[in-house]
């Protein structure tokens, strides 16, 4: 059955359907052709095909029984050491089904695997190297400890280019009977960069309003995902109303499940819409950069956000 979600419905199922990442596809196709793939690390931004190619590998290797030989774990949701010790080991230690020489474990969003879990994995990878291959997918390869990186072939995925994005849009439009203006292609590219998941979701949401996709519609729909309160948080802070500003900030973050980094991105954009001196905007932006840096190094994202708005409070 076709999924109701377009991103799923139009996800490539073979190497030939993949758009972009030509070099990577070529090399992996060769591995699969020889029925032998190494442990792999896929690094790159969101929505450029890391998970998709892993699923394609499984389909090409195992045919219809791919689900039995393929374990997909999302490390953002199950990231503790227990998962490594139980789920992964249980799957890895049994033999593959059919004539496949090994099973595959995909650890999606491995950035969020704890260090302990990663340490526990390096042994598991070696112990079951006969029966199992690992694919790690990450945004930043630096989050993966060296001993694991050294056991993997590393593939760096690039953001999709405008022509790739255009091809994907044309493809979806043909199947879903959409009318997409040229200006809309630019709008989608500007809003999503090369993130195809975002792109598919925005397109589908637009289509639920109107099959004629205009750039105005796209901008409107895309803005749904941005919290409306960012401007209020900022203006409260500038007025010196620290407590109100921080309470609103905390509520928005908890309500929408936003991280400190998500929030600082929004704030940094919104600063330029404020009615204040440009020099002040510049210094506020620099402050955002400093706090984002501290957030990466530090331990408490919300405390760092408070530091940011407190610095906006001072006159």
């Amino acid at each position: 059955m076709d999924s109701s979600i377009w991103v799923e419905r139009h996800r490539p199922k073979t190497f030939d359907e993949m758009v972009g990442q030509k070099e990577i596809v070529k090399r992996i196709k060769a591995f699969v052709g020889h029925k032998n793939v190494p442990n792999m690390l896929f690094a790159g931004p969101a929505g450029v095909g890391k998970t998709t190619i892993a699923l394609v590998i499984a389909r090409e290797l195992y045919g219809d029984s791919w689900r039995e030989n393929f374990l997909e774990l999302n490390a953002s949701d199950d990231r503790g050491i227990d998962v490594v010790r139980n789920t992964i080991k249980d799957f890895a230690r049994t033999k593959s089904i059919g004539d496949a020489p090994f099973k595959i474990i995909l650890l999606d969003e491995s950035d969020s695997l704890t260090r302990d879990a990663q340490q526990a994995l390096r042994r598991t990878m070696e112990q079951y190297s006969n029966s199992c291959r690992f694919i790690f997918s990450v945004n930043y390869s630096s989050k993966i400890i060296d001993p694991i990186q050294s056991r993997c072939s590393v593939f760096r995925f690039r953001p999709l280019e405008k022509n790739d994005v255009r091809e994907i849009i044309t493809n979806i439009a043909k199947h879903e009977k959409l009318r997409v203006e040229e200006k809309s292609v630019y709008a989608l590219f500007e809003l999503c960069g090369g993130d195809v998941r975002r792109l598919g979701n925005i397109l589908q949401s637009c289509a639920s309003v109107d099959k004629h996709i205009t750039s105005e519609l796209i901008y409107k729909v895309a803005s749904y995902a941005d919290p409306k309160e960012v401007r209020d948080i900022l203006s409260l802070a500038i007025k010196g109303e620290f407590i109100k500003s921080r309470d609103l900030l905390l509520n928005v973050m908890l309500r929408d499940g936003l991280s400190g980094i998500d929030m600082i991105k929004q704030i940094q954009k919104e600063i330029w819409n404020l009615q204040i001196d440009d020099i002040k905007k510049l210094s506020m932006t620099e402050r955002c950069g400093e706090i984002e840096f501290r957030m990466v190094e530090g331990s408490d994202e919300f405390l760092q956000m408070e530091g940011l708005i407190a610095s906006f409070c001072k006159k």
Partner: protein
Amino acid sequence: MLLIDKYKPTSTKEIFGQDRAIDELKKCIKSKKTAILLGKSGIGKTASIYALANEFNYEIVESNSSDIRNKEGVINFLGSASSQGSLFYDGKLILIDEIEGMAGNADKGGLNAVTEIIKKSNFPVILTCNDVQSKNFSSLKKICKVISFEPLSYSIVFELLKNVSKKEGLGIQDDLLKSLAIKSNGDARAALIDLEFFRYNDFSDVNFLSRDMSQDVSQALRVLFKSKNPKSISEVFDSLHEDLDEITLWIEENCPKEYSGEDLASCFDSLSKADVFNGRIIKRQYYRFLVYRRILMSLGVGLAKKEKKLGQVNYTRSSRILKMWIWNNKNLRKKSISGKIGGITHASLKKSFKEFIFYKHLLNDKTFISELELNEDEIEWINKN
């Protein structure tokens, strides 16, 4: 009589938040099927069984972890009970409580004996188990109907406490009851036992919990925010038992009441730098950084003010953790739906949660709902939102 006994439910109407599980259990007992009740402790598993037995006028033969439950023990105790009828009641129930308590060596062969009894028994056999994860009982799960008891939400525990407190005339403030409810972590029994403490003590007009923990802390905060003396500021945390994480929350909550403008910015700048050192400690396990964290949190915060501060300020405990809890509860269904969307789109729960708005228009679509295999609670949530 303890509150926990005094307010023990006598009918299923008095058990909150487990309606569906109780319905399933009722069906099992009526059809003489074996059931295993899974769920954390103190959320009403055993209480539901007793309440139902009461409603049906059934006798309960109970074996719990205080009994010897090796092979002989189980057969001696339950074997005969499972075949003989009840003299004074309309029926009989065999209850094997806290089954996870019998996996050990001392109860060798016990589990197998239980399996035998389930197969032979003329009466419904009900088992309870706290340890949802445990694999030891997978063989039992195959021959039993598994009924899950969900953890109680904080608001249900709160309602329960409020109810009891009102009936007992304890006159405890809602805030305190809320804290107790949160502390209980969904365990109604623990919450009632905590409430016991307030029964014979008169705390009607003081917020006991915050007084208890803030006596030393508010003294320390006073020095930190008011004093200009570097020596007393730098020693301010020495007398406290709280760790620096806890103290951070205290400062974070209360500094905006004392400082404003430049002072506040400089205070938070120090807290932010202290947090960077904490992050480095966690990542590198290099504990000497503690020195810097501590100094930034004491002198950094204390010397942030340009002038000495006068006046009396009422310090309060941080509400951040409470808010996290409340939002987590509010977002429960949205999260579980996001998890299912993530499942079919190969994305994490977190990611689907953030993109939820783009899937929302699909949630009115019947085929999409069946693709996601949403349960009743989730569908109800969608209809409400």
